[in-house]
């Protein structure tokens, strides 16, 4: 009763090329393809489905960034890489919850991914910092900043959306919001 991964797993090459070309389909296939593997690992090592989703998504982001940065070599299999990164992330989480990390039940070969993991930790910390800063920012600042920087709306659009009388007012408002956000971000 070994676990059969879905038949539609794309080849490693397809995934790498797909991600380099920003193909949504490649990412979706990758995601669906290897999810059971990570789910199995987490469920067998004192985690639940929600843990599996979090860990797996983080691992995919690590892989995605590594491919995008051009430093992913196809010498290791994507599957092994994803498994190893997920494993590393989960071990860290287990340690944080002061749960035992010996006696880990493994299902795949494991690579050393410490370097990538450290880079990821750093990025993850910044992500949390930004998330927290945005949450502390409050409305309407949060939405204005998100619209401008994340959803790439123009100042004109923002001006209309929030009912400012002219774009200068909107710009001033955005400037004030940005100053506060930067303060929150750099302080934390």
């Amino acid at each position, binding site marked *: 009763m070994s676990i059969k991964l879905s038949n539609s797993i794309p080849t490693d090459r397809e995934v790498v090329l797909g991600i380099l070309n920003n193909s949504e389909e490649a990412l979706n296939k990758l995601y669906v393809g290897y999810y059971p593997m990570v789910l199995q690992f987490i469920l067998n090592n004192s985690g639940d489905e929600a843990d599996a989703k979090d860990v797996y998504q983080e691992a995919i982001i690590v892989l995605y960034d590594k491919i995008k940065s051009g430093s992913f070599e196809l010498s290791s299999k994507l599957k092994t890489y994803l498994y190893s990164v997920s494993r590393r992330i989960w071990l860290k989480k287990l340690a944080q919850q002061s749960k035992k990390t010996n006696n880990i039940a493994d299902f795949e070969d494991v690579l050393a991914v410490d370097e990538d993991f450290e880079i990821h930790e750093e990025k993850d910390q910044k992500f949390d910092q*930004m998330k927290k800063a945005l949450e502390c920012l409050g409305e309407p600042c949060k939405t204005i900043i998100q619209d401008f920087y994340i959803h790439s709306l123009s100042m004109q659009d923002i001006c209309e959306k929030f009912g400012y009388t002219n774009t200068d007012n909107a710009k001033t408002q955005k400037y004030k919001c940005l100053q506060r956000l930067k303060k929150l971000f750099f302080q934390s």
Partner: protein
Amino acid sequence: MNNDIQLESIIEDYLNGKLTPNEVAAFEQLRSNDPVVDHKVVAHKVFLESMKQYAHVLALKAQMDNAHEQIDVASISAKVKPHSSKIVRIWRNNKSAIAIAASFIIMIGAVLSSYYSKTKQEGSLQLLDRKISRLNQSQNNIIRVISNDAKKVNHAPAKFGGTGFAISSNGYILTNYHVIKDADSLYIQNNKGVSYKVKKYYTDPINDIAILKVTDLSFENLGALPYSIKKTSAGIGEAVYTLGYPKDDVVLGDGYVSSKTGINGDTLAYQIAIPVNPGNSGGPLLDNNGNIVGVINGKESKTDGAAFAVKSRYIMEALNAIPQDSLNKRVAFGKKSVLQGLKRHKQIEKIQDYVFMVKVYN
């Protein structure tokens, strides 16, 4: 205030590469002259990058959440969650090894067939079941003829014999396929001389593995198995030993792993330096910690002291093929062998109740 807003928007345009070359030059001049501006540029750069990364991760997560929706999490997790049965866990733990094994089988098959056609091998493989009439063939199966050793009053003398060992406490016995392949009826006999009827349960001719099931009602549960199966492969020089029935009492064979491949570089098998004899086929090959690393299956006819054993991971493959519900809870395949740390003779004392002579009638 207005100046600050303008400065900020210039910094942003500068960082986003939206300024004209002239503006860039002017701005860089200002930046190098004014440390405050320079600091603002650096800070804003860090901020913009963090924001970009933040947006990027959010977008990825949103996309992955979409993909996640398509997955039937409940049904997958029902399949992969920790299973109550230990043996299923072991199968799963070794599924990659099994996959590798499967690909090796195909590869080796191809390599071997081309190899055979090109080279004439000097030695040849003898399979260690005990049939004297076959001894002179190039691929001998060394099954000892025991026609003279009538054992049980109610049984006719067996024609061949081999060795087998328990893989579960409820009467599943593993041996070599070549030992039992021509059998009409099969019995196993324990070290106390008691025989039980068994039937073929599963055969794997490629890996030379067969699993027998005891059908005798008088068979008693064996209790927890003392040995476990080793997941990883054994290294060259690792001390190993085997128990087998080249005669009617159990015999110890001692030696070491001498090569990680079998005859003609066969990666399914180890070469071991243990003197083995007809009747040793199917015997367990154990390391000093009581882990099973392989199954004895043959020897080289022209080289002294070169015997072969099927690697333990192919035992896993065989186990994988048994439907799980046919094995009851008492199936014991611990990861940690209770034999670990015991002296050799103590280990054997514990193991010998689980090693059987396989008697073949045809």
